[in-house]
């Protein structure tokens, strides 16, 4: 019998092939897809986030772990109803204007999808008006912005200004993250939330939408 811990370990080890075998086996054995997600995949990625935080894992290790998690999510997704997915909310995500680094943003998107969020990924070098337009047309619950550079981080402020100007600041929650970003900066520019890594970003998104 496959157990949750084995699946979690496959996430932590970044072993997509083993993940596929284990999840297929677990589904055959009647394990609930929702349990696979909540009790194995997400906790596995939380361990990865912790290892990243303490400097044991770096971006390449996190990327292969996210890839392994994604392999598991893809297998269970068809079996999850909207309710079971715990449809958590809609997130419009992108790397801000002037910044062409998308690894961090991609990781957060994978993690959010894994946690049941619907994610609309605008890609990189996204101008403020694009964030606003999509947040409006998709009735997004969260706008999430990423930046790798201290220079481009400043575009987050411009985007928040555009969101305010469009009159939707009270309709969406704004999350920011990326290497140079801090809680202090988030407070300064009036973002609703900041997360230092992808695993924390999921917790923060849930917190902002009052999801347990």
């Amino acid at each position, binding site marked *: 019998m496959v157990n949750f811990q084995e699946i979690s370990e496959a996430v932590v080890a*970044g072993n997509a092939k083993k993940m596929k075998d284990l999840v297929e086996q677990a589904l055959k054995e009647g394990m609930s897809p929702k349990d696979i997600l909540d009790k194995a995949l997400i906790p596995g990625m939380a361990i990865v986030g912790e290892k990243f935080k303490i*400097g044991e*894992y*770096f*971006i*390449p*290790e996190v*990327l*292969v772990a996210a*890839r392994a998690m994604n392999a598991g999510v893809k297998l269970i997704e068809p079996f999850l109803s909207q309710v079971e997915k715990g449809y958590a909310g809609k997130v419009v995500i992108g790397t801000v204007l*002037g910044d*062409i*680094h*998308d*690894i961090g943003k*991609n990781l957060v998107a994978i993690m959010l999808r894994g946690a049941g969020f619907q994610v609309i990924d605008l890609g990189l070098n996204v101008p403020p008006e694009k964030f606003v337009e999509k947040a409006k047309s998709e009735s997004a619950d969260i706008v999430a912005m990423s930046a790798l550079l*201290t*220079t481009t*981080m*400043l575009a987050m402020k411009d985007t928040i200004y555009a969101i305010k100007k469009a009159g939707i600041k009270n309709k969406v929650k704004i999350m920011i993250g990326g*290497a*140079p970003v801090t809680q202090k900066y988030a407070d300064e520019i009036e973002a609703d939330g900041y997360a230092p890594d992808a695993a924390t970003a999921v917790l923060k998104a849930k917190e902002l939408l009052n999801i347990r």
Partner: protein
Amino acid sequence: MGLDLSAGKSLVIPLLGAPGVKLSKTTLRENLTNERIQLKTLELLIEKFKPDGIFPFMDLTVEAEALGLEVDFADNDNPSIRNHCIKTIENLKSIRRRYKGISGRMPIFLNIVENLAKNFSLIVGAYVIGPFTLVGELMGLENLCLNLMMKPASVYKFLDFVTRVIKDYAYALLTAGADIVIILEPSAVILSPRHFEEFSGKYISHLVSDLGTKLMLRICGNSNHILKQMSRTGIMGLSVDSPVNLKETSNIVSEDVILMGNLDPIKVFLQSNPEEIAKATRILLEEMKGIRNFILSSGCDLPINTPLENIEAFMFEARKPLQ
């Protein structure tokens, strides 16, 4: 002019370039694509700020462009590679076959260096991209990260080739008269110390052993976790960003290694005022007092909108004698 740190006084070489467009009333794009315009801008920067050394504009797309990749330019934003399309060994073989040495915009930068070395008596620097960062430009950084975890042998092949390309360009820059060539390896900041040694440091060591002692290494952002490994490459010096404590770094690396840095280009140069920048400069100089081999500089390339009076205040404070 050679690099001489023996006088006991720190050299002052901010990473100028982009802010100079205000002096020459030009755009970043014009400077990166036109040798005459960039030279004029650099001359104006030298005249106005009188630094101990000057570097051409920083541009991380030159080598990838020379290998045939397309570059998107904006008037006043850094250029970027349009498609990171060299993903497979077959793609690599194809660019390797076509590679003919110096090409693309490399001659622009070579001529600028040659001109500066001939006409100015100050230290002339130059930049080349680092091997790991260049492979990231070729195949995409995310792809590179996955490959180094799962197919490292293929990554070694890419690194072997790009190291040759970088060596050819760095050799040409040194021959043109560069006193220092800084290897820009920003993408390596995401690696663990072990992976840094395996996928970047080892190749930088090859460059050092092939090209000699005029190479420095620069990694942006928080490189604290790989400082030891960076210095072990045999490099002449390290240029580090503001999250690194330079004083502590001087205790980690051998005293022969030059340390260059590292006032915050955003919070200090871009966003503060002349009084604040003078204070930050003074604090750094006090901290580094007595440390040989220190070059006072900005933590990174200065942003295009950096107020010129802030650079002036930095230079003024840097030239004052220490109490």
